[in-house]
């Protein structure tokens, strides 16, 4: 399948960007957060993206992060936006609610869902989609993304299974994306996921993704780390993969660390620092597609927050096209 043709979509989405977006459905989409927020002042840069460096909000990070908000970031960058996982916060009270409110009041919010199972073999849970909508509206979420995969059979398995790259799957997934977009009253972004097996494919991963984006008229969350992981595990050229993506549909990007098992096997853990090949690939995406808001995902083996901010600084250098430091440029942890 050929690379998807360019589609007239604005390539950024933020509070204040255009209110009209060519979509195939007829209602007015809430393209800005319900309560537009003051964006933090971005350090001088020539990027056209209003917020470029984002950090995934995690329960394990909130306490330390709150302290930094109060004490200041020193010479390290403050994240320009956050990404939250709705399933980890929705409907909760107590400290969860307090912490979520603390951050959503201070930052532009992107949301990255886990349990929609957009490619699932059983019926979509539309009651859950309704609860999601309430969450997205309450938090003023700018972009909502999900995984182009499935996580259910007759119940939830809470992790990502690969959708077979077949024409039948393209049809099924697109029909479901359209229903979800219709219900959420917004365009959603789907993420290229890392996969470790692919039963009976009829097309390549790039062809599958392009077909889905085009036919469901949705956006792409381009996970740079996943491109690298899959390119190693399945032996393809990661740069060519990025070049094959429809640039105008890329809403935002992810980077993360992984676990290298061998020359030919990587597990996508989000539990280590971002590796050099992934930084290089981010630079390639920046050169190919232009700057996009990019989120650092860290889900385990958490280092001190200052180490993650060092990675955000590196990310900022790449996205803003300024001189690259090395991730190690962050103030070193003093060890005795």
């Amino acid at each position: 399948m050929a690379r998807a043709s360019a589609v007239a979509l604005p390539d950024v989405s933020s509070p204040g960007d255009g209110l009209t977006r060519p979509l195939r459905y007829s209602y007015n989409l809430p393209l800005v957060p319900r309560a537009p927020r003051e964006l933090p002042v971005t350090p001088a840069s020539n990027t056209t993206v209003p917020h470029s460096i984002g950090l995934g909000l995690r329960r394990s990070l909130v306490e330390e992060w709150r302290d930094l908000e109060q004490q200041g970031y020193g010479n390290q960058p403050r994240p320009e936006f956050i990404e939250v996982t709705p399933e980890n916060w929705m409907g909760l009270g107590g400290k969860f609610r307090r912490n979520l409110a603390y951050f959503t009041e201070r930052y532009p919010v992107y949301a990255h869902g886990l349990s929609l199972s957009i490619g699932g073999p059983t019926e979509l849970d539309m009651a859950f989609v309704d609860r999601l909508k309430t969450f997205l509206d309450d938090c003023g979420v700018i972009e909502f993304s999900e995984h182009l995969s499935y996580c259910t059979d007759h119940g939830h398995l809470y992790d990502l299974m690969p959708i077979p790259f077949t024409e039948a799957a393209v049809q099924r997934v697109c029909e479901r994306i359209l229903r979800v977009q219709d219900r959420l009253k917004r365009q959603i972004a789907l993420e290229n996921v890392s996969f470790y097996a692919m039963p009976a494919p009829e097309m390549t991963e790039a062809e599958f993704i392009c077909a889905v984006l085009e036919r469901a008229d949705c956006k792409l969350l381009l996970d740079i780390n996943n491109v690298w992981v899959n390119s190693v595990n399945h032996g393809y050229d990661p740069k060519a993969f990025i070049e094959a993506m429809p640039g105008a549909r890329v809403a935002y990007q992810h980077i993360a660390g992984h676990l290298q098992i061998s020359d030919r096997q990587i597990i996508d853990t989000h539990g280590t620092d971002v590796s050099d090949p992934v930084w290089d690939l981010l630079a390639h995406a920046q050169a190919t597609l232009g700057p996009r808001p990019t989120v650092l995902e860290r889900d385990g083996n958490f280092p001190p927050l200052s180490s993650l901010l060092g990675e955000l600084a590196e990310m900022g250098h790449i996205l803003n096209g300024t001189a690259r430091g090395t991730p190690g440029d962050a103030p070193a942890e003093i060890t005795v």
Partner: protein
Amino acid sequence: MQSQQELQEMQLAFAAAIRDPDLDTHFPNVSPEQLAVYRELFWDNLKALLDSACPVARDVLGQDTWNMLLGRFWKEHPASTPEYTRMPFEFADWIAGQNLEDGGLPLWLAELIRWEVAELGAMFAPESKDAPPTGSDISATHIAPSLQLHAFAWPVHRIGKNWQPSSPETTCLACYRTAELDIAFMELTPLGTALLELLLAEPEAGLAGATRQLADAMGTDATALETSMAPFIDDLYERGVLGNTHRKGGMEHSPAIDTSENP
């Protein structure tokens, strides 16, 4: 080309193969090693959650029995909640429906797990939509929405690696969120528990209504019961488990005892 039905069957079979490592399913283009990666990732994910939700049960049962139990749950139970962190509640419900005796498992296991996840219940509970009653409505009583109240047949709060009960012993336990949003634990009398259960079932009737109902059931005088329960009630107000604007805390005696250890 794959049909819709073939797609669905393949996806269900793939998930089933992940749930059950003993299934000898083969998929075109998928090596056993690749399938093993999925089995391991999914299993680790499940285990990380339930290990941290039920540390006492895991400790007491030992790694092998615990893993066997999780494996059965994983294979047999299609979890319905999209929220990963709520899954321990489904595990507690599932184990409550199992025949523990036939499975060679301790009879108190389901109650222990219920008590372990009660702490999560108190942490997660959304705030009440209604503000505590104000004004002259002294009969209305506000109950903390985070309150998890349990009457158990076994003293589950004392179970640990070094001690397990050999006979049942009615044990009433509760946990709730404090004003500082931390979790606190209480051991209650059966009478206090009965009163709170009545209040939870019919909050509109208020404390007076619940006391009257309880007195009727016991064949006692309501006023006498109210007097004897007063210190307990005062303690609940003090802790913020109960609230309304006409009661102030600061009472003398507390029959509600903090359990010394978290479950």
